[in-house]
């Protein structure tokens, strides 16, 4: 979103490193392969609409 995209989605993820010839030193962080898509807004209005749809809920101070 910050880079200027809308419609970000990760429709697929899977273990793509298991059984590789060498062990990965990053495996302890739970690395998965993913596919993600997003789209550049068609115009300024679509971008503003996407920003307007963002919500941020802040819990009240107790």
């Amino acid at each position: 979103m910050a880079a200027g995209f809308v419609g970000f989605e990760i429709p697929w993820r899977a273990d793509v490193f298991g059984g590789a010839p060498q062990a990965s030193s990053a495996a302890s962080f739970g690395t998965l392969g993913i596919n993600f898509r997003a789209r550049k807004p068609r115009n300024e209005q679509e971008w503003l609409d996407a920003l307007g749809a963002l919500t941020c809920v802040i819990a009240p101070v107790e």
Partner: protein
Amino acid sequence: MADVMMESSPLDIQRLRQAIRDEYTAVARSPEQGFHFHTGHPLARLLGYDDAWLDGIPDGTIASFAGTGNPFRLGPLQPGECVVDVGCGAGFDSLIAARMVGPQGRVVGVDMTPAMLAKARASAAEAGTTNVTFHEGYAEALPVPDGWADVVISNGVLNLVPNKSAALQEMARVLKPGGRLQIGDILVQKPVPESAKRQIDLWTG
């Protein structure tokens, strides 16, 4: 103590890029040696590439394929579209894209590893693919005009880019309004400490 020392030394971008270049030069020249990731035909099957997409792609380029996802499972490319492949490696996805967009379409592959680019260019020539060109460059500074691309693809690259925000902004810059981003990459399920982000061997291995 070790963490404190690493906190005080920032990530050396040039050293990181050279380490990545060295790793992927090996993938280009000796893909059979075995890495911490899968490569080649077995990887393409694992990631759901149709066998038909690989028809006519030279063996050398298939052998050096080292993606982590499948940009084409996110949606087909249309005839006549312009595509940028960020971190194109030996040209595996670029050559598939070139066939999908057809003779009226164009594909630009960008990579920072000369050995990969040499292999990609040789494979394009061997396959007789004339609607693809390969250029040396970084994801954070794509050698592509503003608003040129209908689609930006990338596969297993963004996780290796030091400045991911700059790379995504570059992808947005080169896309036409409404243009699509179709990316294969890596997700980590556990938080990575700041000190670990400065360890180059974690980036490359």
